[in-house]
């Protein structure tokens, strides 16, 4: 056992442990408020989850990538089933009481299948993409990966959990990129969504259609593909308004508040404003560990989950933020390195997908604390309180460590040094 530990990828392991400890300390601080709440003792439960995560990671580490590849379709099917189940028996929790993202049995909330579904989707995508002889070259080749990621994405969107749905899309694109898909194809794939977003302004949308037409002429895809892309873009522009109306009011408000938090400073904009005030008032060195007033006086919402990074910003200042981001960078670069050195395409894609999962969560969660990103309420790896996501992260880290170990076994000498 100990010999196995010594054979671990040091960089990856150390960065994860450092992040877990940093996250636990922040979570402890998040509970230190002047307003009594259940958050005060939540760090103890997180310790339990971390121990559980360690065990799960160890188990995953013992699982060979071949075994994983074999089990992938079952895992994918089970998580899809669970996602479907949440639509019927799901319950809400915390700040998202109205949604159905939790599986609850007998009133006891059991977990959020969406977090595990992200992992299962990564595995499924990796399995399918690795099985292809050539990288996807036409839009037709993207249909199956689109379905693999699209199914859980739609189910999650139905809960509704916009944040997680976006994560599925991001994972799809990142993994397609890693599988060698031409960037131009990815741009074309993404174009309907871009068209949809730009439809808020007729002028912007018109320019986009012109640019797209130029791109199509330049890249010269198959004619029917070009027509389909163009048609989808036009359709997106036309459907933008009905789609907007279909969004739940709180989703609309969040998007509007992202563009301008001051439209609704008491409700939708409140989170962003309070978070920015917390982060901004932290300054260079912060107000001191556990001393953040925004957090202490409960102005900071969801300070133990969605806005935990604001606590870092408020109490430890710019320096604390730099340290946290550096640790995340270390983790991400470690994962990229492992993905590069992986012995087979499936492992490589898995690890890159996991890196993409972390990356998306980090960018989205950290970005929203300073209004770089709209508020979607997805957790920050190793910081936010929450069992399901921590377990998903642990499994991901376990897989990455195993892949690193495999590649080291097959002769990548520098890994062990």
């Amino acid at each position, binding site marked *: 056992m100990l010999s196995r530990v010594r054979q671990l990828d040091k960089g990856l392991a150390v960065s994860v442990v450092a992040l877990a400890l940093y996250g636990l300390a922040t979570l402890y601080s998040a509970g230190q408020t002047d*307003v009594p709440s259940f958050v005060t003792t939540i760090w103890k439960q997180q310790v339990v989850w971390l121990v559980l995560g360690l065990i799960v990671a160890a188990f995953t580490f013992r699982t060979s990538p071949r075994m994983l590849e074999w089990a992938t379709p079952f895992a994918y099917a089970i998580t899809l089933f669970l996602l479907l189940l949440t639509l019927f028996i799901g319950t809400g929790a915390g700040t998202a009481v109205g949604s159905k993202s939790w599986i609850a049995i007998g009133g006891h909330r059991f977990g959020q299948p969406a977090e595990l579904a992200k992992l299962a989707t990564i595995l499924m995508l990796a399995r399918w993409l690795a099985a292809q002889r050539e990288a996807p070259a036409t839009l037709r080749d993207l249909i199956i990966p689109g379905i693999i990621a699209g199914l859980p994405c739609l189910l999650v969107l139905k809960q509704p959990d916009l944040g997680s749905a976006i994560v599925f899309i991001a994972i799809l694109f990142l993994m397609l990129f890693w599988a060698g898909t031409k960037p131009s194809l990815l741009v074309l794939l993404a174009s309907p969504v871009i068209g949809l977003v730009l439809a808020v302004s007729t002028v912007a949308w018109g320019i986009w259609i012109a640019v797209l037409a130029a791109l199509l002429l330049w890249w010269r895809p198959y004619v029917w593909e070009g027509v389909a892309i163009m048609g989808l873009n036009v359709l997106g522009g036309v459907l933008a308004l009905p789609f907007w109306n279909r969004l739940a009011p709180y989703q609309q408000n969040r998007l509007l508040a992202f563009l301008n938090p001051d439209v609704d400073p008491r409700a939708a904009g409140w989170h962003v404003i309070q978070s920015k005030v917390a982060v901004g008032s932290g300054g260079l060195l912060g107000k001191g560990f556990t001393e953040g007033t925004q957090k202490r006086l409960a102005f900071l919402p969801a300070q133990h989950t969605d806005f935990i990074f604001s606590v870092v910003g408020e109490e430890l200042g710019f320096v604390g933020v730099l340290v946290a*981001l550096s640790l995340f960078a270390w983790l991400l670069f470690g994962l990229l390195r492992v993905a590069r050195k992986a012995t087979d395409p499936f492992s*490589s894609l898995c690890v890159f997908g996991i890196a993409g999962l972390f990356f998306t969560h980090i*960018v989205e969660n950290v*970005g929203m604390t*300073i209004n770089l990103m709209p508020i979607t309420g997805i957790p920050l790896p190793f910081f936010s309180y929450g069992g399901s996501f921590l377990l998903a992260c642990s499994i991901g880290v376990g897989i990455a460590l195993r892949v690193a170990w495999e590649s080291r076994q097959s002769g990548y000498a520098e890994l062990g040094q």
Partner: protein
Amino acid sequence: MNAFHPHLLDRRLGMARTGVWIVLGVMVMAFFRTQILGHGKYQLQSETNRLRPIPLPAPRGVIYDRNGRVLAENVPGYTVSLLPGPEANLRSTLAQIASIANIDSVEIERVLQRARRAPYQPALVLGDAPFRVVSALEERRVAIPGLLIQAEPKRYYPDTAVVAHLVGYVGEVTEVERTTRRFATVRLGGLVGKYGLEREYDDTLRGSEGIHFVEVSARGQMVREADAAANLAPVPGTDLHTTLDLDLQRYISRTFPAGQRGAVLALNPNTGEVLALYSAPGFDPNAFVGGISTSYWRSLNESAARPLLDRAIQARYPPGSTWKLAVAAMALKRGIVGPRSHMPIPCRGGLQYGNRFFRCWNAHGHGDLTLTEAIAQSCDVYFYQLGIKLGVTSLLEDANEWGFRGRTGIDLPDEISSEFPTGPEYYDRLYGPRRWTSAVALNLAIGQGENAQTLVQMVRLYQQLASDGRVRTPFVVRRAAAPGTSASLDLNPDQLAILRRAMIAVVEEGTARSGRLTGLQIAGKTGTAQNPHGADHGWFIGFAPAEKPEIVVGAIIEFAQHGTAAIPIVSRTIAHYLGLEETAATRMRVTVPTDSAPQPFQIPVLPDTLPPVIPVDSAVPRPPTR
């Protein structure tokens, strides 16, 4: 070529690394901008974020009488309120303190409603918490989130009901009031004057609230007191010095016939200063402090005696024979009669006019009288004929010019207008053109008919008679800037002297002989206001000393049958004010003058006029919401 060839992987790795670097770089720059460049701005926001202003009520100005005695003051009191928070929290907190604070579910709802109306302010639970409750709550303070106990100045009226109508009371500002310009600056839940002087001079008395900062959580729960430097001390209201003579006021309330309804108003005829204003039955203004109890409020409003009504300025009565002086003054002014003028027909107990017989109150008849004697005996037959001589047009013209249709402009809120026809057109409208005769003049001449006056209006007439004929608008603190009526009766001193002599005769040998005082000449006039709803109301308005009047006192007593009932209270008040032995009021038995028109004249009710019983709805203040 395999997409996972190391060369291709290296290329993609490079792109991925670049992407991560760029995104993290953007984030670091964004944090730099927020935390380093924007630090000052956000630091300030986070400071102001957590400080919550708690209003510090200003003590209201003290109200004094003319001798510096206190009518309304402030004593230390306690308020209990809850800092704002989610309704569920407030509800559970209220449930927690309900037994200690002794509040029922209705009041809990009221507190919650208050919290909903002003969500960022402390919601008042108890406006005037007894010390027992305060100490019990203070003991459990730690367990009760958001509890705010403040020592606040509390209004106190030492003389309670004696000065209730004049001084008024305070209460929480209503939503409707806050929409008016006058109360726009008052915060929700702030106290404003609701009645009497408290309302009239609210702007002066109110002062301005201070602010006291406490550090609160986002849920609005108080965490600790903030730095004292940030606090703003309240500015106390300005004291009010009134013209009231508290001693006289107390004397009136003591001697006012127990259980009777009515009002007494005493003025200085030479200045218009209100020396006393008393209305019975009274109420306890202290009960309104900190929110009146529902049961007491209901009892005040449902009582047939309408204690909240200020009968001196908010009730109209037919003036009865007190009006005869107005008619006599009009006739003198127009030169129709002199002091020794006789009427063509002597009084034989009545007067046949047209197809109607107008009776005199004295069925035996008064015989042939001069003007002075007619006033002294209050002879109706004489005044019927004087009315005919004067004519309806002149009568209406003079009465309107002298302001008998309108307000006196006394500096008290909610004074109602007296009612009087505007001119002959009124009768054209009422009966149709040429369908009425000068018979209406007969009724108008003896103070019946379409005529309803407030006590203050009639006392003002006698104030003019007691002085040089000029109007001195009655006032308690400050004279109204522009009296709405013509300035004078336009009588020369001789004519005034004639009327005064006649009024002396009223007391010396006429209908008010019971009011005669040894060593003092009182001039005055009785009146009986017909009341179709019950017993007649009694009037007496008098002034003294008759030659150089220093006080004019008017009294109305409801259901008193006739004016004689009001005589003792007026004469005693005058005697007390002038420092005489009030028991000197002779208690001799007098002929009881019924002093009124023969048949109860059914006053036609027009939208323009009013029933003799008072339309109170407009005058009664709205229930204070607490």
